[in-house]
């Protein structure tokens, strides 16, 4: 409608010019072939004006013009053409108006979002973390809608080769209208992910999202402790602090190396081999940089009883008394901190060049030390790859992985927490099993739902009073002695969660089973769950008769055998 209001003036201009031109043309006498005076009909006048004003110029139709007519034709031509240019110019100006473009983009974005039928997430902020997260979601076949206030990032989004189409809007996500456009009120919106460094904006988005749809999951990356506390007060908001997560993972690597290995493998961390855990030494450590990451790591290290010397020029004297060296982490300071004897070193200042130079010094002074380095900027990836530290923390990657895990398979975290309370042997057993099933391939997590629509054959068999065990489901129908590449991790039943169920566990209708394996494993398992004959064969070892006739025959033979001779 805005368009029509904007076009009112050019429209009136054209109507006026046409009216004057056509009326004049109809009133001015012409001559027919015999020289008698003749007036142009209104229709012919309109026809003449149309081709004249649009500069088509068919000539003098229907008969040669008189001089008066020609005079008027000149007038018609100039006014008509000017009116058209004016109208076209106005339209082009409107189309180039940035506000108009924004309005059109918003509308088409809202329409695209409304048409999404599968579950989707809203990602606010498309920086390093946002694009990693979008990539991860796309790899798992999940849709996302992206809002960022930076036009360049939204333009870049259009060039990504995601498997799933991700609509993007350049707008301020803290404006409620834009959140609604992004589908926050839609029932298939499964979560809002806020990845914005500005605390106020990120807080505002969280509040707006909560107001607009109280049921929606909100995940927020934290930027400071104060911010984190604000967010936690809101309830039902998951706050992701990459530094704390990294410190937790590090402490897990010290106490539960196998579990740490399993976790990194499940989140598809780069270069992780299943069954090849990191060996983090527990001797004396050196911590360069006592910012947020340094403090978190120190806290968890102290918790594990690991002593560390801290080097930071700006740290307060009172923090970590007795262990603090207030200096830049150059070669001399490192030597003073005892780098030759250190078991490990953490370079976690907020400057990539400082971190890399610390790493260089350490590799020269004590090449055996376990090195952990913080990478602040995604662009420096190549340099960090070349530095080959034992562990690299890239906060955007850590955040993206954790959010992905939380959104896609929140139960995996439960499993990891469960395994933490168990004996290390349980983890090792699971790792061996996963290694056999998946090996070098990419791990794939999925959930099999034993309901009528997703596992028709299984529910039928169970309804008919049959029994199914977990091991029956994962047999390979082509070689029943072999298992498919699917390892059951847990069963959800009546709100309860059975962790690492035994293979002889009976499955029931309505169970939700979480598997880890390969994508092919999932397809084969789904085929098992939906083919009544295969499933019966796997469960009993007997090929059931197919079709009415053979079923009848089988029943006949059975009753005859049972009857006394």
């Amino acid at each position: 409608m805005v368009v029509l209001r904007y076009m009112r003036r050019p429209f009136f201009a054209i109507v006026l010019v046409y009216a004057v031109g056509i009326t004049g043309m109809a009133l001015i006498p012409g001559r027919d072939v015999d020289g008698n005076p003749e007036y142009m009909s209104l229709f012919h006048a309109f026809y003449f004006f149309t081709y004249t004003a649009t500069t088509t110029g068919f000539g003098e139709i229907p008969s040669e013009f008189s001089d008066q007519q020609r005079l008027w034709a000149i007038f018609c031509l100039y006014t008509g053409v000017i009116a058209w240019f004016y109208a076209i110019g106005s339209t082009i100006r409107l189309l180039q108006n940035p506000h108009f473009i924004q309005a059109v983009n918003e509308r088409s974005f809202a329409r695209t979002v409304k048409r999404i039928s599968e579950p989707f997430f809203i990602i606010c902020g498309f920086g390093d973390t946002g694009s990693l997260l979008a990539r991860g979601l796309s790899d798992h076949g999940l849709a996302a809608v992206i809002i960022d206030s930076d036009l360049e990032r939204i333009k870049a989004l259009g060039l990504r080769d995601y498997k799933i189409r991700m609509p993007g809007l350049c707008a301020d996500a803290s404006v409620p209208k834009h959140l609604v456009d992004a589908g926050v009120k839609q029932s298939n919106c499964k979560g809002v992910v806020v990845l914005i460094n500005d605390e106020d904006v990120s807080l505002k988005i969280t509040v707006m999202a909560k107001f607009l749809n109280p049921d929606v999951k909100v995940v927020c990356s934290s930027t400071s402790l104060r911010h984190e506390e604000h967010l936690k007060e809101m309830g039902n908001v998951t706050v992701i602090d990459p530094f704390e997560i990294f410190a937790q993972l590090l402490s897990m690597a010290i106490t539960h190396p196998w579990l740490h290995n399993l976790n990194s493998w499940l989140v598809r961390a780069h270069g992780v081999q299943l069954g090849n855990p990191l060996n983090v030494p527990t001797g004396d450590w050196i911590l360069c940089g006592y910012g947020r990451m340094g403090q978190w790591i120190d806290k968890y290290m102290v918790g594990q009883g690991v002593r560390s010397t801290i080097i930071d020029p700006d740290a307060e004297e009172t923090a970590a008394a007795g262990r603090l060296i207030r200096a830049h982490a150059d070669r001399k300071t490192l030597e003073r901190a005892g780098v030759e004897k250190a078991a490990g070193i953490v370079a976690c200042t907020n400057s990539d060049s400082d971190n890399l130079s610390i790493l260089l010094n350490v590799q020269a002074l004590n090449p055996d030390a376990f090195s952990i380095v913080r990478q602040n900027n995604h662009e420096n990836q190549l340099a960090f790859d070349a530095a080959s530290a034992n562990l690299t923390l890239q906060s955007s990657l850590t955040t993206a992985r954790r959010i992905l895990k939380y959104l896609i398979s929140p139960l995996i975290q439960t499993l990891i927490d469960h395994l933490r309370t168990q004996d290390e042997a349980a983890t090792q057993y699971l790792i061996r099993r996963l290694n056999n099933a998946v090996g070098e391939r990419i791990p794939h997590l999925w959930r099999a739902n034993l309901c009528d629509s997703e596992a028709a054959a299984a529910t039928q068999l169970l309804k008919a009073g049959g029994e199914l065990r977990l091991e029956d489901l994962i047999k390979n129908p082509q070689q029943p002695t072999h298992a498919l590449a699917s390892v059951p991790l847990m069963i959800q039943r009546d709100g309860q969660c059975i962790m690492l169920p035994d293979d002889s566990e009976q499955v029931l209708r309505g169970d939700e089973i979480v598997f880890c394996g390969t994508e092919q494993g999932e397809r084969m398992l789904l085929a098992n769950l939906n083919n009544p004959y295969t499933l019966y064969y796997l469960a009993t070892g007997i090929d059931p008769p197919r079709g009415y006739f053979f079923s009848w025959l089988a029943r006949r033979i059975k009753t005859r055998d049972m009857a006394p001779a």
Partner: protein
Amino acid sequence: MNLERVIFGFFILLALTLNFVFVVGEIDNYKHHNVWVLTIAILVSLIATGLKLGDRTQVGALLLAASLVTDLLLITARIIWIVAKTDVGLAPEAMVTIVSIAAGALVANIVSAVILIGDTLMSRR
């Protein structure tokens, strides 16, 4: 070896071969095509259809559909034979229609057999 699969395979392949036996020959020469073979082919095809009833898989549904097509075409061919028959045999025009319809049924029979073989090879046990 599974007796059920033997019987099932036997009828499907027999239906195919009988159909072929009927179709072979000059297309318009009624002496090259035996009405008895056509009738038996219909019978065997009907039995095969019966055996396919009640299979709850996708493959089973496809097999049944192919069988129904065969029945329909062969029975049509037989009816045309009855209608067009005169004392001196069949006119070449009528014979062409009958044999080409039976050839259509042959295609459906081939599809049936291919599905059966594919399904058996897939299960590999």
